[in-house]
């Protein structure tokens, strides 16, 4: 356990959310959210169902642009170049090339293990077979999956177990060296052992990548994250160092949620 003070001295802000609001058509799903996302740390988003945490997460890689009728207000500024990810001039494709996502249900493509991990490189136009092979191997190592699949690279990804498939999806996202990794409830479809292996993986990954994770499991947030944000009905109620928030939350709403009280 590290002392929070020394941690704070080393903090670098990777992204800054400034007064972010989001509309599904006329419905306002997010209300003026502002918070930092610190580099090479895990930030968790917690809150009851429907509080907007997944909606918030998907703003980071402009996933909402895929569907009509959505509107962003406010900014998400990515450092160090100070780009506002939500600006109209910024191409969502470019955003998604820098920010990766792992989904709730493992969604490997119906292709081979190798082709799954290589896909991100292919769409970028990477032509060299050597480069692709090296990056695929590196990504599978980083996702703690290499040993289990190194003899099965040309076999269908669907033959892997649920936990392995999710790690494959993580490797797939890692292959393109993302600056920020978004995890949308990554272990809610997995058994406890697979969950533990993914949490362990996150602990290793955060030395290289900034991680933002949505989870409905509070204990998971307490285990894996350095910072936690509690959301309710589209608003950010409290943001702070995880240990502090779980031992001594500042807001009564936060306390009520994490102790299981809705009085």
């Amino acid at each position, binding site marked *: 356990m590290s002392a929070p003070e020394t941690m704070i001295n080393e903090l670098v802000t990777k992204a800054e959310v400034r007064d972010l609001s989001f509309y599904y058509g006329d419905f306002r799903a997010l209300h003026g959210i502002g918070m930092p996302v610190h580099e090479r740390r895990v930030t968790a988003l917690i809150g009851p169902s429907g509080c907007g945490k997944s909606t918030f997460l998907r703003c980071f*890689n402009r*996933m909402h642009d*895929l569907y*009509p009728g959505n509107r962003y207000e406010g900014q998400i500024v990515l450092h160090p170049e100070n780009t506002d990810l939500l600006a109209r001039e910024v191409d969502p*494709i*470019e955003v*998604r*090339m820098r920010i*990766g*996502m792992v*989904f709730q*249900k493992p*969604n490997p*493509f*119906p*292709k081979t293990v190798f082709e799954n991990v290589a*896909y*991100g490189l*292919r*769409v*970028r136009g990477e032509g060299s077979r050597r480069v692709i092979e090296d990056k695929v191997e590196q990504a599978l190592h980083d996702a703690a999956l290499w040993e289990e699949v190194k003899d099965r690279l040309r076999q*269908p990804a*669907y033959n892997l177990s649920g936990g392995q498939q999710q790690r494959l*999806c993580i490797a*797939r*996202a890692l292959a*393109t060296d993302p600056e920020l990794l978004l995890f949308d409830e990554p272990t809610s479809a997995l058994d406890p052992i697979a969950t533990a292996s993914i949490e362990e993986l996150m602990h290793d990954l955060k030395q290289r990548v900034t991680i933002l994770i949505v989870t409905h499991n509070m204990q998971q947030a307490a285990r894996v994250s350095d910072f936690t944000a509690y959301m309710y009905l589209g608003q950010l109620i409290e943001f702070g160092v995880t240990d502090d928030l779980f031992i001594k939350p500042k807001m009564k709403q936060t306390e009520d949620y994490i102790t299981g009280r809705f009085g």
Partner: protein
Amino acid sequence: MSRAELVSRKRYEVLFAALGLLALAIAVLTFLTLFVDMAVKGLPRLDLDFFTSFPSRRAANAGILSAWVGSTLVMLVTALFAVPLGVASGIYLEEYAPKNWMTDLIEINITNLAGVPSIVYGLLALGLFVYQFGLGQSILTAGLTLALLILPVVIVATREAIRSIPQIIREGSYALGATRWQTVRYHILPYSSPGILTGIIIGMARAIGETAPIITIGALTFIAFLPPAPVSAAPPFLSFEWLTSPFTVMPIQMFNWTSRPEAAFQANAAAAGFVLVFMTLAMNGLAIWLRYRLRRNIRW
């Protein structure tokens, strides 16, 4: 008390199962009877000569050479037009078109087109292809007509196949920075190809038996020659004259033979019918097998 209820409920279940089986039996038996009847009448006629001879006034010498060559060439043209047009339309409607009232209107119309009587297509083709465009009563016209006929089938099959792809696969592709075209090319097309292929083959199996539109555009009933070969020894090695040549197809040949009084011609017609049914069944079988092979990797 409940045991008696259970017994009476089960009785209804048995009754319904029996009725269903009866309905199935009637349908299957009817088809089997026709097929067996055709086989009995026609099988004796099936020999190599039958396949390699032209029609003739003498029943014993008559064959289906021009008919099955004509059918094959027409199917070729049909596929050439129907597949790219149909698949591209399906992809556009599902992946690119905005979801508004206009797209809905198009969707409804396409589904309706599948129900238009085939002779109407024949009339359309007559006016448009034969006279307006001056394509004549040719294989090209027949192919275009049948392509139009099966276009709705291909479009609907494409759309259904694309719709069955879970959204999460698309999102997975986009999340890695792919463009829409890359997603279509690397995911949508490959994963929907089993369904699309099935749709194409089923459409073709229908087209191969269409008679009314072919007659309307003027396929001749007595053709004793083959269209010019597409490849030749002398340059230019490829020729497209066959497209504009007169022709006949299997159903028309059958129709021609059945309208003659001699019993021998009836046998010929039965034999040709047997061949036609066999071709249709073979195409359907191919569709099923291809679908099984291509679907192996897909788990949704």
